[in-house]
């Protein structure tokens, strides 16, 4: 038990504790932690993953959409309101899933159960911990988005299989673009009341006004401009281009660049805030 190993490095011994060689190697050491957590929680999430999209599609797409004339000129090229709203709902769900996963759960890790403090006491670094947690968040987004897209496929709202596959990948990017900044915000927040700002001034307005439910062209010019600089609009528009099969390449590249830059800036901010929280 706990015998003192002789100091100094010898030949590599598999039973010898070491520091990870890279951030990826460090994050992989956390795989078993996140697998264990997921094994304990997946049952609670799987039902909502299936039911939520069904409810949305029936209520918004079929019932509400029944009152809306499917005019492609009015609906950014969609031939039905269901086809218009479906990609918007997918992207909006990627956003809400991510915000749910990077607010309270992150605060729990740094403030309530302090599990991160246990991790940082081991040979892991802030970047390792962030990468593993964000990878888990992306895994959750991948699952819910895949289910969402699969549930909507029978409604005939997708123009091509390739478009849907690309739209699926776009959800990971949308997820990451929201995950890193919200994670950063949560990692440095004093208490959970800080999340009211995220939910009330961030998530809900974005959900309602970022072009998921109606074309942003319907807004007054200044509001339309405001809508088009929000991250969710870029995600919604990109997703819709792909599911409707009406891709404007230069606009698509702008969307991708916007989301990548947001994710990267969020990562840097998160690393700084988490470092300050854990290493003080």
């Amino acid at each position, binding site marked *: 038990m706990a*015998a003192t190993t002789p100091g100094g490095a010898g030949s590599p011994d*598999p039973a010898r504790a070491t520091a*990870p060689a890279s951030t990826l190697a460090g994050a992989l050491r956390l795989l078993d932690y996140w697998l264990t957590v997921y094994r304990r929680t997946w049952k609670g999430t799987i039902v909502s993953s299936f039911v939520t999209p069904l409810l949305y599609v029936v209520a918004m797409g079929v019932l509400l959409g029944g009152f809306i004339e499917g005019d492609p000129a009015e609906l950014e090229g969609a031939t039905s309101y269901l086809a218009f709203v479906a990609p918007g709902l997918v992207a909006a769900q990627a956003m809400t899933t991510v915000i749910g996963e990077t607010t309270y759960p992150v605060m729990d890790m740094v403030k309530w159960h302090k*599990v991160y403090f*246990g991790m940082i006491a081991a040979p892991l670094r802030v970047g390792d911990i962030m990468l593993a947690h964000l990878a888990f968040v992306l895994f959750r987004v991948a699952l819910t988005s895949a289910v969402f897209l699969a549930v909507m496929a029978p409604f005939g709202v997708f123009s091509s299989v390739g478009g849907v596959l690309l739209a699926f990948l776009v959800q990971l990017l949308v997820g990451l673009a929201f995950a890193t900044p919200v994670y950063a915000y949560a990692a440095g927040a004093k208490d959970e009341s800080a999340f009211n700002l995220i939910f009330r001034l961030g998530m809900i307005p974005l959900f309602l006004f970022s072009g998921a439910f109606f074309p942003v062209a319907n807004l007054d010019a200044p509001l339309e401009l405001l809508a088009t600089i929000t991250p969710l609009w870029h995600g919604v528009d990109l997703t819709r281009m792909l599911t409707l099969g009406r891709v404007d390449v230069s606009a698509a590249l702008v969307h991708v660049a916007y989301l990548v830059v947001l994710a990267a800036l969020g990562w840097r901010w998160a690393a700084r805030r988490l470092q300050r929280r854990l290493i003080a």
Partner: protein
Amino acid sequence: MTATDSMIWAQGLRKGFGDVEAVRGIDVDVRRGEAFGFLGPNGAGKSSTMRMVAAVSPISGGELRILGLDPAVDGPEIRARIGVCPQEDTLDTELTVRENLFVYGRYFGLPRKEVRARVDELLEFVQLTEKAGSMVEDLSGGMKRRLTIARSLINRPEVLLLDEPTTGLDPQARHVVWDRLFRLKQQGVTLVLTTHYMDEAEQLTDRLVVMDKGLIVAEGSPLDLIAEHSTREVAELRFGVAQEGDTHEVVARQVEDLADRVEVLPDRLLLYSHDGEETVAKVHERGLEPVATLVRRSTLEDVFLRLTGRTLVD
């Protein structure tokens, strides 16, 4: 400069948080196989020191080497070779006892098979084998602490850091923890612990430093410190409030020539002398009638009182 078989070596070590200086320049040298203690009241700078030694808190000044390495450069390497039992448990309460240990072992880059074997061994060591499948949130405080100690041993550390290992535990749970730590010490693990319990320091440490307000005020073995800063025995006298309005201060002046030193506490007088019974007899000869007397050996509590004028736990 730094000796190679120093497990922990610090010189002029400082830690500040904004305007507050928690650690104000301390020198420490912990040798291999030693059980070393930081004794002091809350706010003395013990936990800040431990976090720097655990390589999770950058130093503000001075020099620090852990296992000969600089924590500012080799933090992860250091953390791979030490064990940390923090003051506050950082267990995942939604996982089982076994899962907590298993995932933690994986953080150190150990193969799954190796970790599983160590988990069984450690569960046995901290007497939690029967609780292996229980959720952590269902454990008692003492069991959680034992689990945290087991977790800190998963990498077979060369140094084990324990920050207030028994604070908040009931007496029985404390004795179980002490017993396990004593076994580790016998196996040659270098122990570094902080405590504000003098009995804990006396039971577990070979050598300790007394910290007060961010500084080390004394250093030595528990026995040496007592011999150096206190007398062999202490007579504790308690006087009733009805005793003709005499306060303890007034009584203290009447008996101060009977002992080497007299301390006045809110509820009692401490008379330091070589022979406590003889001192008590002399007090009675003066016509003073304490309502309660106790003669005992000097402890580290007396050392602390002598050095700082304050008690450890208040």
